[in-house]
């Protein structure tokens, strides 16, 4: 479990880093009067600044993911320029013709430079595109106005040089940030896949290559989901993801007996528009194995602990039912008492087994969307007779409005409420009152349960230890010796496993109120469903 937590934190941090970086580059690029675009090694546009959009009239969503040659008339020349930059390993400049969205030709000067990571591997290119329409006009009128214009021109050249220097600096910083992110992605222990807005694979980290048995990256980068089906492990993953790449949260995918992954997808959004998807592959093989071993262990423990108790229970039951011959009233009396003692032992063992399971971690088995008031009503009903017998008024105040459904493990929550109600009734004297109520806090988006009694209360000096394992308060011990001291420990664990909270207010001899809140957390799932 702890392993998983660290991963989530790391992922969160990387996500924040990426967001910071994105903002940083965006802000830096925004004010530059020079059109800049960033390309990946395949010359696909992966980022552009405001000046670029102004010059070309393309929106971000229209241009990201396009091949750079699409926006130039001289398609071979732009390709050659980029190839040469890579071969000669120095920035180059060339005059070309840019085609805007409206098919208008603009003469431009294109400067290209490579982007490299720390190890000197090529990770893409930078292109600075300078509109030279004006410069051309200058040149034409130059003959007429050489003398008066020379000075101006020189000044504007100097300005241009300054801008280019600034761009170099910005480029260097951006590259640094990108390299850092790349190192993080490369060394990430989870597998990561990045798909672009057309659902084509644009990045795969080394761990994902190992998980999916990818030998050569070149064969899969830039391929669409359908084209990736040729790799058996990809096929299984794609079956889970679907062609639309809907949001997936922690779904299990078994690639082989020795490799079970947990898959999560995260949409990449800019201005609420999806421009790609990150797929996270988390290895849970070991956790699954441990889980299986634990199940086996609990099963064996249950067997060892319960076998003699079942034998006693069944023997006594059959004696009582007369299945083993007639018994006298006195014998019946003794056997009934023994039967009840045995039942107490059984419930103590049940509590112990529940505790074992809690400490194993995987305690919530099947969370399903449920109306909590139905669960509470069920538990309250099952205690009415007990309350009547003890002459206690047990009341359930239902919520005024229908509660939103919440995802809970019904069996466990029932057990938690049962423990609270059991205590309330057990430790309230005859003619007392136990009130259960439910309400929904719209602002906090949580459901609150209250179990209030007019019972013996919890002594001040012992309130701190009330949720500890095997703890029983002094006044309670005096009153009744029965009880495992595990009820509230189990209840607290159940509530916290649901990301809820539990607390109480109590005054000795006046009564106790337990409060439980459970979060209504549908937003995140709803959010994921949208993609």
């Amino acid at each position: 479990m702890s392993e998983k937590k660290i991963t989530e934190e790391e992922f969160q941090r990387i996500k924040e880093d990426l967001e910071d970086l994105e903002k940083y580059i965006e802000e830096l690029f925004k004010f530059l009067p020079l059109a800049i675009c960033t390309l990946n090694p395949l010359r696909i546009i992966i980022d552009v600044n405001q000046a670029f959009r102004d010059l070309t009239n393309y929106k971000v969503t229209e241009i990201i993911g396009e091949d750079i040659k699409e926006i130039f008339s001289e398609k071979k020349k732009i390709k050659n320029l980029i190839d040469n930059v890579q071969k000669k390993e120095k920035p180059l400049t060339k005059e070309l013709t840019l085609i805007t969205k409206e098919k208008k030709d603009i003469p431009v000067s294109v400067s290209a430079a490579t982007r490299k990571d720390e190890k000197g591997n090529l990770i893409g290119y930078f292109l600075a595109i300078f509109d030279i329409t004006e410069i051309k006009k200058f040149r034409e009128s130059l003959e007429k106005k050489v003398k008066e214009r020379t000075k101006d021109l020189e000044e504007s050249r100097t300005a241009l040089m300054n801008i280019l220097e600034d761009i170099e600096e910005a480029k260097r910083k951006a590259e640094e940030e990108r390299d850092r992110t790349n190192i993080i992605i490369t060394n990430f222990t989870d597998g990561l896949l990045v798909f672009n807005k057309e659902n084509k694979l644009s990045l795969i980290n080394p761990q994902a290559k190992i998980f999916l048995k990818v030998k050569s990256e070149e064969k899969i980068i830039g391929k669409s989901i359908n084209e990736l089906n040729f790799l058996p492990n990809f096929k299984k993953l794609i079956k889970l993801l679907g062609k639309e790449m809907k949001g997936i949260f922690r779904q299990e995918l078994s690639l082989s007996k020795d490799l079970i992954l947990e898959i999560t997808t995260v949409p990449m959004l800019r201005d609420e528009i999806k421009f790609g998807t990150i797929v996270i592959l988390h290895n849970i093989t070991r956790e699954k194995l441990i889980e299986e071993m634990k199940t086996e262990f609990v099963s064996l423990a249950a067997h060892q602990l319960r076998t003699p108790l079942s034998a006693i229970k069944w023997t006594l039951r059959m004696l009582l039912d007369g299945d083993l011959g007639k018994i006298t009233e006195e014998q019946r009396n003794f056997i009934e008492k023994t039967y009840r003692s045995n039942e107490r032992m059984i419930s103590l063992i049940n509590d112990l087994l529940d505790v074992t399971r809690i400490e194993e971690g995987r305690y919530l088995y099947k969370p399903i969307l449920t109306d909590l008031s139905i669960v509470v009503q069920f538990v309250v009903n099952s205690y009415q007779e007990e309350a009547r017998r003890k002459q206690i008024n047990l009341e359930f105040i239902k919520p005024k409005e229908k509660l939103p459904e919440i995802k809970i493990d019904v069996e466990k929550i029932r057990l938690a409420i049962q423990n609270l109600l059991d205590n309330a009734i057990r430790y309230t004297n005859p003619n007392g009152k136990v009130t259960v109520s439910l309400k929904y806090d719209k602002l906090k988006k949580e459901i609150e349960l209250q179990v209030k009694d007019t019972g013996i209360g919890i002594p001040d000096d012992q309130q701190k230890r009330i949720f500890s394992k095997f703890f029983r308060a002094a006044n309670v011990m005096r009153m009744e010796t029965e009880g495992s001291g595990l009820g509230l420990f189990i209840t607290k664990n159940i509530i916290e496993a649901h990301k809820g909270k539990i607390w109480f207010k109590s005054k000795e001899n006046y009564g106790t109120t337990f409060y439980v809140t459970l979060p209504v957390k549908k937003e995140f799932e709803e959010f994921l469903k949208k993609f």
Partner: protein
Amino acid sequence: MEKKILLIEDEEIMIDLLRRKLIQEGYNVSIARDGEEGLKIMKKIMPDLILLDIIMPKMGGFEVMEEMQKDKKLAKIPVIVISNSGQPVEIDKAQKLGAKDWLIKTEFDPQEVIDKIKKQIK
């Protein structure tokens, strides 16, 4: 015709109690003390229902059900699991292997076992 019930269980006292109760209810009872013996006997007598323990020597209850699934005739015999454990994962697994019901011994008594049997074979 008397219905045939095969009880596969290793705990002597449980065998004693259940056998007595089942005979009282008019069933024809056969006993196996481990999974292997259970498989042998069920092939021979083709019982109407099987009461199956999970943790047993030689071959456990899950393996017995796995073996039964491989045989078309045996797969049709209704199985009620009687176990001392009852974790949701285990119950799920048993259901997938065709078990009709799962009883935790400490939570039921012999009469309730009879009721469950009657539900399966009338």
